[in-house]
């Protein structure tokens, strides 16, 4: 369950109307149906991180609301959990303990915790690494742990902040495919922030293109391409061209 509705969302940093205050988001509204994958595409400074932080409950909106199944998001928690760019794994916990952490916080009893953690370790392909520590893993594997840790709490909404930014190009593409595979196995409503057009097309059902400061919804695009997405497909290329034009308009008017 997890229909995401963002309604008239605005965010001002600093005192509203005061000098030096910054309008980061202006009247952003869109809707993502249950278990669909939505990317927010835009240049840095378009407020996409603010949007994600509000959806994660780390920041409060100046106006408007973010709701999941009609319930407003007011604070961070497992219902709207986030996957971070730098993975944010607990270095003192083994891979198993990292993935089980959220379940423990949720109050899941030990037996179920072990079973669920084992299930997600299998899904992200980390069998045999349960007792390793994060510093012993490569970047891609750490990202798998982060994905498993977030999925294990069974969130209504999964938020991702440029999750593959720290990976090299080869690994990034591979992990994008992996994310799609994992998501197809464990469907969730996903909101992902990226500045990569290819990443957005490869992953998403919907793409929200944002304008530069203040961030507004410039276009809301439904991606009607079959999965797995083929880079050489004419539909893919047409969409890529369209997105590039939308994005380039924004880069020019600095």
């Amino acid at each position, binding site marked *: 369950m997890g229909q995401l509705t963002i309604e008239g969302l605005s965010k001002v940093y600093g005192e509203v109307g005061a000098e030096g205050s910054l309008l980061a988001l202006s009247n952003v509204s869109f809707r993502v149906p249950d278990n669909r994958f939505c990317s927010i595409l835009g240049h840095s400074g378009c407020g996409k991180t603010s949007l994600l932080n509000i959806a*994660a*409950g*780390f920041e409060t909106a100046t106006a408007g609301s973010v709701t999941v199944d009609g319930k407003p998001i007011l604070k*961070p*928690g*497992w219902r*709207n*959990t*986030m996957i*971070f760019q*730098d993975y*944010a*794994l*607990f*270095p*003192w916990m083994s891979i198993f303990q990292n993935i089980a*952490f*959220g379940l423990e*916080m*949720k109050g899941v009893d030990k037996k179920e915790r072990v079973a669920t953690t084992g299930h997600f370790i299998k899904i992200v392909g980390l069998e045999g690494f349960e007792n390793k*520590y*994060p*510093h012993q893993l490569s970047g891609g594997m750490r990202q798998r742990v982060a994905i498993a*840790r*977030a999925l294990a*709490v069974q969130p209504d909404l999964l938020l991702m902040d440029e999750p593959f930014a720290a990976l090299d190009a080869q690994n990034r593409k591979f992990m994008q495919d992996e994310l799609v595979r994992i998501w197809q196995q464990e469907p969730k409503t996903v909101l992902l922030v990226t500045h990569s057009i290819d990443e957005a097309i490869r992953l998403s059902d919907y793409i929200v293109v944002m304008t530069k400061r203040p961030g507004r919804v410039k276009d809301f695009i439904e991606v009607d391409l079959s999965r797995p997405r083929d880079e050489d497909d004419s539909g893919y290329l047409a969409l890529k061209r369209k997105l590039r034009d939308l994005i380039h308009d924004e880069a020019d008017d600095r």
Partner: protein
Amino acid sequence: MSGGKVASPMASTKPTSGDDALASSPEKRGFSRAMVPLGAWVMRMVTALPNLALLILFVLAWQFASKVWIPSIDPHMAVLMPAPTTIAVTAAGMIVSGELFYHLLDSLRREAVAFAFSMTAVPLGIAMGWWRPVYNQVSPIMEILRPIPPLAWIPLSILWFGLGDEQNEFIIFLGIFFPILVNTIVGVKNIDPSLIRAARSLGASQFKILTRVVLQGALPQIITGIRIGLGVGWMALVAAELVGANSGLGFLINDARSMLRTDIIIVGMLTIGVVGLLIDVAIRVVGRRLLPWSLVLSR
């Protein structure tokens, strides 16, 4: 290091001296070309020396000075610098009689009691590192107290506690407390904020964040603080026992002074040194065992 790059040591036939060796050390290579093979030869010889060679040489020189050289100048002075063999015999006697362990255990007990009390620095440090208002209120007090050496508290503490264990423990406590406090605060402040965000995003309560993330994340730094603290405390302990105790290693060496037993003094000093080192090593080993993930501690 540079040995492989220079000419064969056989080419050098010049006699060597310490000054030459310094002048042609690898850092000064190129300064004088003629000295390069010589310097390399010296470096190779030094590298080839067995470990502890210098220490053995030092002990032998000490033995010679105590037994032959100083007595030949003034036999009365010989007592000021007992020979290593004399010290070894004294040490063996003190170990067998249990005297050394009696004093050592008293010192260790005081250090342990003071350490137990100084662990209060951990919750205080976490509170100060986590809540800005707590830090703002408490840190001025701490900043005034911290630079006062534990030894400066000895006169006041004798008036407060009298001579004995409590007074000693108080001085040691002051030595251990502040390093743990300062390191705990630093450890808390240095925790990656995204770890705290991740914990909140996974549904952790404020209390769980403090116990499972903040405390755990600060632990390597806290252990570093404990290491430094126990070292400072150990030094303070000896000083406290010098003036305010009738047992312990500090008392032992001060008591021996009044009887001109320099051999006992040196046995006591060596025990203090060796035990201090062992405490340090033990904490490092325990820290690495308990926190295998910590890059700080495995360094």
